[in-house]
C-alpha cells in the first residue's frame, strides 16, 4: 500500500519545474565517490621492515583492497609507535580479511616476531626468525640484535652466537648504536662455548676504549681461566682489559671485577705475588670489594704473612655488615691467624666475639627460616612491584625489601637463577592481575548489555513507529484527496475560483430563475433587457476576474501542494531512518552476551592455569630460599662449632701450659 502511494506521489502531475528524481525508498543519493582500482602494488620490500614502506595511492577503490590496505597500514602504524598489543590485533584482522592463517608479508612476520620478543616470548620469536631466515627472507640487523640479547641473557649461547652473526650480515644493517654491544654479545657467546681463539679473533671489531670491549674481555678472561690457558696470554689479556676501561662508575666496577677474578685465578695457580698485586689494586668502593678483601687475606695467609693477612679482614669487617657473605667467611680467619702468630689472648678474645655473634646469627636464622616469614618476605617484594607490568613493559624490578631475610640471603640474591625465577613470578603475578581486571571488565559489559536490551524493550519503539506511520498514512490520504481535487479543478469552468468568487457566481446563478420568472409573467411595463444586459456584464466581469486570477492561484495552489508533498517525503524518509535505527539498535546487544560468556570462560581457564604456575613458582622460590638459608645455617653452625672447639683447645692448651709449668696437678 505504501509503495503504491509513494509511486503515485512520484508521478509528474503538473507541467512545471522538474521534480526531484530521488525516491524516499531508494538508499543513497548521488554523492558516492568511485575511483578506479589499480594494481595493489605495495612496494615495501621483504628485507626492509618498517622503513620506506611505499603505498600506491592510485590503488584506492574497491572495498576489499582498500580495507586490506588500511589494516596493513594500521598494523605497521601500531608496530612503529610501539603499541604492541594493538599490533597483534590488527594482524589478526588483516589475516581474517584476506582469509589466511599466515602473515601476509615477510616483513610483517618479522615484526610479529619482534613484537613477541618484546613481550617476552623469546622462543616463539626465535622460531619465526629462523623460519623467515630459512625461507630466504631476512630480518633487520636490529631484530637479530634484540634476539641475540635475549638469548644470551637466557644462557643459550650457541643460538645467541648465530643470531649475532645474522645481525652483522643482515640487510638493513644494524643501527650504529648497537654495533659495539652486538660484537660484545658475539665475543661473549663464543667465549661461553670455550672457543678462545675464535673469540679473540672476533674481538677485532670492538673499539678499545669502550665498556662493551671491557665486558667482552672479561668474559674471555673467564673462559681462559676455565681452560687453564697459558698464563702469559692470560696476564696480557688482563692487563689489556684493565688498561682500556673508561674512567666512570661502571668502568671502575668492571675493573674491580676483572682484578678479583684475576687475583683468584692467580691464587689458585699459586702465583701469590701476582695475586697480591691484583687484589691490592681493587678499590674500596665497588660491590666486589668484600670478596676481594677476603681473598686478599687468604692469599697473604698462604704466603705466611700472618700479620699482614689480618689487615684486609679487619677492614672487611669494619666496612660491611655481619650478614655479608664475605664477612661471614672471615669470622674464623682472624682468630685463626692470630693463633698462628701466637697471639693467644687476642685469639681467644676474637674467638669469643665470633662465638657470640655466630650464636646470635644462628638463633636468628633459625627463627626466620620457616615457611611463613619466607612467604611474607616474598609477598612484600611482590607488593612493591605490583605496579610494574610484565614482559617488555617492565623496566626494572626493585630489590627485595630490606629485612632480616634479605640480609641472610645476600648470596642468594646474587644468584642469577634465583633472580630469573623471581622475575618469572612477577610476570605471573601481573598476568593474573591483568586477567582479573579483564574478567571484571567483562562483567561490567554484561550489565551494560542487559541494560541496553532492557532500554530498547522499554522504548516500545515498534509501537511508537507504527502509530506514527498510521498518522503519516492519514496525512498522505489527505494529500491525495487534495491532489484529486486539483486534477478535477482543471476540468471545471470556474477553476481556482476563490470563495468570494464562488459566492458571486452563486448569486449570479440565483438571479437567473428570478429573471426567467419575470420573463414568463411578461407584464408590458417590465423591460428586462437592461437587467439581462447587466447580468451578462456582471457575468463577463466575473469570468474575466476569475480567469485573470486563475494562473496565479493555480501557481500558488500547486506550489503549496508541492511543498506539502516534499514535507511528507521528508517525513517518510525520517520514518524510514528511524525504523533502520531501531533495527540497528538491536545490533548493540544481539549476539554479544554469548561472546562475552565465551571470553569469560577462556579467561577463567587461563587464570586457573596461570594460578597453578604461580603456585609452583612461589613454592620453588620459597624452596630455594629455604635451602639457601638451611645451607647457611649448617655453615654457620659448623663455624660456631669450630670456634667453640678452638676456644676449648686454647683454654685447654693454656691450662696445660699453666699447670705443666708449675708441675702441679689441678684439683678435681
Amino acid at each position: 500500500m505504501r509503495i503504491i502511494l509513494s509511486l503515485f506521489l512520484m508521478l509528474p502531475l503538473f507541467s512545471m519545474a522538474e521534480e526531484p528524481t530521488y525516491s524516499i525508498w531508494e538508499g543513497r543519493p548521488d554523492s558516492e565517490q568511485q575511483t578506479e582500482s589499480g594494481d595493489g602494488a605495495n612496494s615495501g620490500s621483504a628485507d626492509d621492515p618498517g622503513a620506506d614502506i611505499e603505498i600506491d595511492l592510485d590503488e584506492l577503490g574497491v572495498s576489499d583492497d582498500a580495507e586490506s590496505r588500511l589494516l596493513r597500514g594500521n598494523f605497521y602504524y601500531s608496530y612503529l609507535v610501539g603499541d604492541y598489543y594493538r599490533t597483534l590485533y590488527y594482524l589478526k584482522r588483516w589475516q581474517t580479511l584476506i582469509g589466511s592463517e599466515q602473515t601476509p608479508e615477510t616483513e610483517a612476520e618479522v615484526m610479529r616476531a619482534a613484537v613477541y620478543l618484546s613481550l617476552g616470548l623469546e622462543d616463539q620469536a626465535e622460531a619465526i626468525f629462523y623460519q623467515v631466515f630459512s625461507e630466504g627472507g631476512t630480518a633487520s640487523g636490529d631484530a637479530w640484535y634484540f634476539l641475540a640479547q635475549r638469548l644470551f641473557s637466557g644462557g643459550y649461547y650457541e643460538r645467541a652466537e648465530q643470531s649475532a652473526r645474522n645481525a652483522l650480515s643482515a640487510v638493513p644493517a644494524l643501527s650504529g648504536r648497537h654495533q659495539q654491544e652486538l660484537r660484545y654479545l658475539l665475543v661473549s657467546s663464543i667465549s661461553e662455548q670455550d672457543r678462545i681463539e675464535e673469540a679473540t679473533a672476533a674481538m677485532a671489531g670492538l673499539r678499545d676504549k669502550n665498556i662493551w670491549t671491557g665486558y667482552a674481555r672479561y668474559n674471555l678472561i673467564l673462559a681462559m681461566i676455565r681452560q687453564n690457558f697459558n698464563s702469559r696470554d692470560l696476564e696480557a689479556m688482563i692487563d689489556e682489559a684493565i688498561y682500556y676501561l673508561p674512567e666512570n662508575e661502571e668502568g671502575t666496577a668492571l675493573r674491580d671485577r676483572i682484578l678479583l677474578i684475576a687475583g683468584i685465578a692467580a691464587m689458585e695457580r699459586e702465583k701469590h705475588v701476582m695475586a697480591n698485586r691484583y687484589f691490592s689494586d681493587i678499590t674500596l668502593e665497588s660491590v666486589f670489594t668484600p670478596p676481594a678483601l677476603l681473598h686478599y687475606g687468604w692469599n697473604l695467609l698462604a704466603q705466611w704473612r700472618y700479620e699482614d693477612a689480618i689487615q684486609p679482614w679487619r677492614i672487611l669487617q669494619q666496612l660491611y655488615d655481619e650478614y655479608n657473605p664475605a664477612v661471614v667467611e672471615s669470622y674464623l680467619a682472624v682468630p685463626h691467624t692470630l693463633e698462628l702468630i701466637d697471639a693467644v689472648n687476642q685469639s681467644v678474645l676474637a674467638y669469643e666475639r665470633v662465638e657470640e655473634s655466630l650464636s646470635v646469627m644462628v638463633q636468628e636464622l633459625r627463627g626466620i627460616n620457616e615457611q611463613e616469614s619466607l612467604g611474607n618476605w616474598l609477598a612484600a617484594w611482590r607488593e612493591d612491584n605490583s605496579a610494574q607490568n610484565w614482559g617488555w613493559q617492565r623496566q626494572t624490578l626493585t630489590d627485595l625489601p630490606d629485612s632480616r631475610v634479605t640480609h641472610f640471603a645476600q648470596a642468594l640474591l646474587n644468584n642469577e637463577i634465583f633472580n630469573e625465577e623471581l622475575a618469572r613470578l612477577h610476570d605471573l603475578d601481573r598476568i593474573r592481575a591483568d586477567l582479573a581486571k579483564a574478567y571484571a571488565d567483562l562483567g561490567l559489559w554484561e550489565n551494560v548489555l542487559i541494560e541496553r536490551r532492557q532500554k530498547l524493550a522499554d522504548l516500545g519503539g515498534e509501537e511508537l513507529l507504527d502509530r506514527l506511520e498510521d498518522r503519516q498514512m492519514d496525512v498522505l490520504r489527505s494529500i491525495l484527496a487534495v491532489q484529486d481535487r486539483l486534477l478535477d479543478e482543471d476540468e471545471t469552468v470556474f477553476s481556482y475560483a476563490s470563495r468570494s468568487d464562488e459566492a458571486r457566481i452563486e448569486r449570479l446563478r440565483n438571479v437567473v430563475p428570478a429573471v426567467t420568472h419575470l420573463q414568463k409573467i411578461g407584464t408590458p411595463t417590465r423591460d428586462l433587457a437592461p437587467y439581462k444586459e447587466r447580468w451578462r456584464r456582471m457575468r463577463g466581469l466575473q469570468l474575466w476576474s476569475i480567469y485573470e486570477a486563475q494562473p496565479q492561484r493555480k501557481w500558488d495552489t500547486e506550489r503549496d501542494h508541492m511543498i506539502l508533498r516534499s514535507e511528507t517525503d521528508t517525513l517518510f524518509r525520517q520514518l524510514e531512518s528511524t525504523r533502520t535505527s531501531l533495527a540497528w539498535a538491536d545490533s548493540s546487544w544481539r549476539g554479544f552476551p554469548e561472546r562475552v560468556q565465551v571470553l569469560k570462560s577462556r579467561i577463567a581457564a587461563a587464570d586457573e592455569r596461570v594460578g597453578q604456575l604461580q603456585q609452583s613458582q612461589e613454592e620453588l622460590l620459597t624452596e630455594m630460599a629455604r635451602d639457601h638459608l638451611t645451607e647457611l645455617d649448617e655453615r654457620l653452625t659448623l663455624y660456631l662449632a669450630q670456634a667453640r672447639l678452638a676456644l676449648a683447645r686454647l683454654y685447654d692448651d693454656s691450662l696445660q701450659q699453666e699447670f705443666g709449668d708449675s708441675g702441679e696437678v689441678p684439683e678435681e
Partner: protein
Amino acid sequence: MGYLARYVVLILLGMQIHAHADTQADNSQSLKPGDMVPDFTLPAVNGFGQRLQEARGSYLMVIWLGHCDECSERLVRYQLLAESLEIEGLKGWFVWTPGGDRSPPNMRLPVLKYEPRWRQGWVFKDRPAIMLINADGRLDHLITGDLEDNYQETEEVVMRWMSQGRDYQRPE
C-alpha cells in the same frame, strides 16, 4: 521525530562509555612521589607534541611552569642542567599554560602547552613544580615552589637521582 533516530542509537550506545570513561575527565591532576604518572600528550610551541608513554625507558624531568610570560631567562639553568645530563639519558620538558596575553618561553627543550580542549592532556595542580619521573613512569621526586628558589635543590636531587637510579640490566 528526526531526533528519535539519534536518540535510539546514540544514547543506548553511550551507556557503556560511562563504564569505560576516560579517566582524565577532570583535567587537573594531583600527584605525590611513588604514584604512577598518568599518560598525557601535549602539543609543543616549538615542534612536535610529546607523549609521556614514549618517554618510558628514559629519565624525565617535567617542569610545570606557573605564571610565565616569556620567562626564558628564569629557565636557562634548568635547560642547561637537562642538556648536560642528556648523554646519561635524561630528557627535559617544560609545560606552559597560556593565559591572557602571555607568551611562551623560547627554549631549545620542548615547551609543551596545556590547553583544556586537548583531551589527551592534563595539567598539574600545584604549579610551579618539577617532576622527576623514572624510566618506569613512576614519579620519584616532586619539588614544588618557585623555580628560581628551588634550582639548587633540584640540581642536587637530580644528580643523586641519576647516579643511583640507573639499574638497567647489565651484561654478565
